[in-house]
């Protein structure tokens, strides 16, 4: 190469430049193969022409061809005044001028009007003349007027006496690289902004010894420190005191460095001293040459999630407890029925078998039997509640007459009503029939009537049944103390009674079960006040289950809770 440079009469600077610019052996071989087809004569400058020696002509021609063939670099010579003297393929490719268009023109045509106005071309050449070489990056203009970002090296060419002969100019089009660099810069900026703005995660850097080096919005939010308060501080201050001093922090960094990652869930401490349950990931960060420059630390506040998990667990435990209770209720009430059946059978046997029973004894046996019946109803109600709670409450629909059902129930209560001093009045329309569970409706009527007798003892009670379009309406009205409007909603809830426990007995399950039965039929149950005093329960039932109980109403309508 040095020989070639010497042969061409180029300065050492120029030789270095070519060494830097050309992947020599490759370009050379490539050019050798195309010598025959790529013979573009070099436009020699008159000054250098005079210095050529015959022995070097072949070398010079080859070298000229190499430069001529280079496509990625514009390589050309200009005279001392700045006029173009040679033009290679790269110059044509980058700038768009053919050799004929370019040679002889002044170099300033490649500069933007602003640069021209600022005298930039002259300044660059002056610097090159003084210092031997100048390098510049900036916008240049193509023949078609478009601009490209160029790296330009201008080298002064001097003869053996040091007289300035001209300049070599090597220009690279860096537009693509500049765009890539700009894109990368933008991408890094965006990424930095992204990390900065993330609020859900604390994302920050530690230096190799564990001091905080950066701090994002999430870190500020979760840990409570402003960036200026924490940058430079050791990350051990995020740990509870017992861990901060136990060497755990250093160990975590060691693990991260050795294994590429450290992750754990544990308690961390905020600036205000409160603790939070955190997921922490620490990863070592290395530069492009593999040097360890610190750690990336990502911390999530899992306190809410942990709370939610604990809440879910508590809920599951509560549900299991409820399920066990309902199961127990079901088994217990079933078990209760066996001895109850034996007692009731014996009492009935006593009452039926001995017609000549002493009246006082008979009276006692009757009361015992009635007590047994009430106990039976309570056990049934308990069973119903457990069935409703476990979704095993079902209706068996058949055609029945609501008026008849009411009559049958009333017959059973005649005796009790007269004991309680309640005059029973019936206002029953004929043929109010529908598709209902007859036994369940009996239960509703029984419940409403026994409530009226109990809470409105001594006043008249009226039961009425009427048809209203495709619905049947049952009302049970009393003239007792009535029920305050504020209690109307509550009264149908499980285990609630409007009357206070001190004044009335009973378990308050009846209305809850009644509402489930009525709603299971697709109906409604409500209360209204009776003037001047009293309460009226109103039950409406769709007469056809398809209209009321939904499209899938069948003989077995499930009442799910």
């Amino acid at each position, binding site marked *: 190469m040095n020989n070639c440079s010497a042969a061409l009469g180029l300065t050492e600077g120029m030789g270095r430049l070519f060494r830097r610019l050309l992947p020599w052996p490759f370009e050379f071989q490539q050019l050798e193969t195309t010598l025959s087809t790529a013979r573009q004569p070099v436009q020699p400058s008159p000054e250098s022409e005079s210095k050529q020696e015959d022995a070097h002509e072949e070398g010079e021609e080859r070298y000229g061809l190499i430069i001529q063939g280079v496509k990625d670099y514009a390589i050309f010579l200009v005279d001392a005044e700045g006029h173009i003297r040679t033009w290679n393929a790269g110059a044509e490719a980058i700038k768009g001028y053919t050799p004929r268009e370019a040679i002889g023109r002044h170099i300033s045509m490649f500069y933007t009007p602003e640069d021209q106005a600022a005298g930039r071309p002259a300044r660059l050449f002056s610097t090159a003349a003084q210092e031997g070489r100048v390098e510049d990056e900036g916008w240049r203009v193509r023949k078609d007027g478009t601009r490209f970002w160029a790296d330009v090296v201008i080298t002064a060419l001097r003869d053996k006496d040091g007289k300035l002969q001209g300049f070599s100019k090597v220009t690279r089009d860096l537009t693509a690289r500049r765009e890539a660099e700009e894109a990368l810069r933008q991408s890094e900026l965006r990424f930095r902004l992204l990390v900065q703005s993330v609020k859900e995660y604390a994302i920050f850097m530690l230096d190799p010894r564990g001091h905080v080096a950066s701090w994002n919005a999430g870190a500020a939010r979760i840990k409570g420190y402003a960036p200026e308060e924490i940058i430079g501080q050791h990350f051990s201050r995020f740990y509870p005191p017992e861990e901060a001093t136990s060497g755990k922090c250093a160990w975590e960094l060691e693990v991260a460095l050795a294994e590429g990652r450290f992750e754990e869930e544990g308690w961390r401490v905020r600036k205000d001293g409160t603790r939070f349950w955190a997921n922490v990931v620490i990863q070592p960060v290395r530069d492009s040459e593999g040097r360890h420059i610190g750690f990336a630390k990502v911390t999530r506040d899992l306190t809410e999630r942990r709370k939610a998990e604990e809440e879910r667990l508590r809920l599951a435990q509560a549900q299991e407890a409820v399920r066990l209770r309902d199961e127990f209720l079901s088994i217990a009430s*079933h078990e209760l*029925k*066996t*001895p*109850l*059946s*034996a*007692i*009731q*059978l*014996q009492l*009935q*046997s006593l009452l*039926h*078998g001995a017609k000549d029973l002493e009246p006082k004894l008979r009276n006692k046996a009757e009361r015992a039997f009635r007590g*047994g019946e009430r106990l*039976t109803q309570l056990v*049934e109600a308990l*069973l*119903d509640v457990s*069935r409703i709670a476990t979704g095993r409450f*079902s209706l*068996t629909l058949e055609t029945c007459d609501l008026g008849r059902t009411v009559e049958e129930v009333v017959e059973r209560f005649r005796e009790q009503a007269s004991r309680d001093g309640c005059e029973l009045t019936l206002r029953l329309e004929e043929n109010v029939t529908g598709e209902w569970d007859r*036994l369940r409706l009996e239960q509703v009527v029984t419940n409403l009537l026994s409530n009226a007798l109990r809470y409105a003892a001594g006043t008249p009670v009226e039961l009425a049944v009427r048809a209203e379009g495709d619905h049947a309406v049952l009302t049970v009205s009393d003239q007792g103390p009535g029920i305050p409007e504020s209690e109307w909603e509550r009264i149908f809830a499980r285990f609630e009674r409007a009357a206070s426990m001190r004044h009335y007995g009973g378990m308050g399950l009846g209305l809850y079960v009644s509402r489930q039965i009525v709603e299971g039929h697709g109906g409604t149950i409500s209360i209204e006040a009776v003037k001047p005093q009293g309460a009226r329960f109103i039950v409406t039932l769709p007469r056809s289950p398809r209209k009321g109980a939904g499209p899938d109403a069948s003989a*077995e309508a499930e009442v799910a809770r």
Partner: protein
Amino acid sequence: MNRHKVMVVEDDAEIREALLEILEENGCDAVGAVNGERALAYLRSTDSLPCLILLDLMMPIMDGHAFREAQLQDPVLSRIPVVVVSAYRDVQTNAEKLNAATFIRKPPRIEELVSAIEQHC
């Protein structure tokens, strides 16, 4: 009036004894069995079949369902009507499944027992 013979299949001794007494008091010949297996054994060995069987559902060894299944497969015994007597709330559904004559919910009332006997014997 001929005394009707009624069988009570019931595992609980108190209930079984009470039912037997009540049936006797109401003019029936009553015979008891503690489970389905004993009932079948009795029915297959006796010369005088009952005109009605009062059948509990939940019993050890052989429950009411299994008894009814076996009974229905026996051409002689299958003709005896069965009244299901159970504490189950859905005794009606069970009775229908077993093709029973009717059902009585526990605790039974004497009127229901008498009515069932009058109707089916």
